[in-house]
C-alpha cells in the first residue's frame, strides 16, 4: 500500500489522522536528518580547510572533484550522505598524508641533530630544507674541511648551503624582442 496523500482520502478519519501524523513525523525526521548532515558537512569543510592550509607547504592535497551535480540543487538525504562521506574520506586521506610527512620531517630533524653532533659518522650526508619542512632550497651537508686534506685528516663539518638565487632556474631564453 502506498503512502501517497491520495490513499489517505479513503481511510477512516481516525486512521487518516494517524497516517498523516506518521507522514508528517517522517518528513520532519528526514528534514532533521538533512539538517544534521549539513551541519556535519560544515564541520568537515572547516577541518578540510585547516588540513589544506597545513598540507600546503608539504606539497598540497590531491585535488579530486566531489560535486554530485552540475548545478546548485536541494540535495536529498542520499546525496547529502555521499557529500558527507566523500568529505570524510578526503579529510582522512589528508590527515594521513600530513601525519606521514610530519613523521618523515621529524626523522630528518633527528638525523640532522646526529649529523651536527658526529659529522664524521655521516660523511657526505645531505638533507634539504624541503625535507625538514622549511622554506627555501638550501641543504645541510656533511663536508670535509679544506677539501681533500680534511678528508684524509678526518675533519668533517656540517654546512648549510645558501641555496640557489633563482629557485625555479633561469627563465628560458625567448629569443630577440619583436619590433
Amino acid at each position, binding site marked *: 500500500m502506498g503512502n501517497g496523500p491520495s490513499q489517505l482520502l479513503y481511510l477512516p478519519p481516525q486512521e487518516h489522522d494517524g497516517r498523516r501524523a506518521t507522514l508528517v513525523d517522517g518528513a520532519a525526521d528526514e*528534514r532533521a536528518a*538533512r539538517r544534521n548532515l*549539513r551541519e556535519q*558537512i*560544515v564541520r568537515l*569543510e*572547516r577541518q578540510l*580547510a*585547516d588540513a*589544506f*592550509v597545513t598540507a*600546503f607547504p608539504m606539497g598540497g592535497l590531491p*585535488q579530486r*572533484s*566531489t*560535486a*554530485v*551535480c552540475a*548545478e*546548485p*540543487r*536541494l*540535495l536529498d538525504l542520499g*546525496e*547529502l550522505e555521499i*557529500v558527507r562521506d566523500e*568529505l570524510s574520506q578526503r579529510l582522512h586521506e589528508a590527515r594521513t598524508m600530513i601525519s606521514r610527512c610530519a613523521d618523515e620531517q621529524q626523522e630528518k630533524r633527528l638525523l640532522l641533530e646526529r649529523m651536527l653532533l658526529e659529522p664524521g659518522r655521516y660523511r657526505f650526508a645531505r638533507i634539504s630544507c624541503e625535507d625538514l619542512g622549511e622554506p627555501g632550497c638550501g641543504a645541510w651537508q656533511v663536508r670535509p674541511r679544506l677539501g681533500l686534506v680534511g678528508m684524509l685528516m678526518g675533519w668533517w663539518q656540517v654546512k648549510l648551503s645558501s641555496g640557489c638565487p633563482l629557485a625555479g632556474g633561469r627563465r628560458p631564453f625567448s629569443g630577440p624582442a619583436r619590433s
Partner: protein
Amino acid sequence: MTGEATGRPLPSDPGFVSSDVAAEFPGLRLDWMTVAAPPGRLRSSPPAVVERLGYLANRYRGASVVAMRTKPIPHAYRAFYRQIGLDPDVERIPAERVAVERLLHGGFASVDLITDACLVALLETGVPIWALDAGAVDEKGLGIRTTTRGDAGWQPGSEYLEPGALAVVDGSTVHGLLFADPGSAGAVRPRTTRVALFSVAVAGVPAIHVDESLWICADLIRRGDSGE
C-alpha cells in the same frame, strides 16, 4: 530612493526565498536594490575606481589566498556550495575565483563601471554582487526558488531548464542559476537606465557585510555616474 539625493547609503530590499528553500536553508538570503545607471552607454570606470582596483590587487599574496578558505565568509560560502552539490574546488566561490585570477594575471583589469563596482564590493567584503537591468525585473522583485518544469532558460532561444535547480528569479523570469552570472535576458545594456544590484548571502555571513557590499557597489556606480 532618497539616499541617492542625499548621498547616504541606499536602502536594500530583502528578496523572497521560496518556502521549500527557506525551510532547508534558513540562513539563505537575497538582498537587492536599484540604482541609476550611467545613461547612454556602459561607461568606463573613473580613475579613482581603477586606482582602487590596483590598491585592492596589492592586498593579495599567495599565502593569504591559500588561507582564505579558513576565513569565516569564504568558509560559509564553501560549506554552502557543498550543501547544494557543488564542489568549491572546481566551481570556485566568487571571492576565491577573483583571488586566483589576481594571482594568475597580476592584477584586476578594469572592464566598465558596473562590473568594476561589483568587483570592488566583492574584494572589500567577500560578499558577491551581481547586476541586472532593473527594467527586466518585474514588480515582485528578485528572490530565490527552485526551477520547475516549464521554466524557460534565461538565454534567448535556450531550452527549458531542468527542474529542481536553485535559481535567482523574479515573479515570472529565471535570471540565472544561484551564484552564476545572470543570463543575457536581464543583462545590463548600454540603454539600461537603472541597475538592479543583488547579493546572495548564506548562513554564517553577517548581514552587515551584505549591506556594506551593496552600499559600496551602489555608491561607486552613483559617484561614477555623477562624474565624481
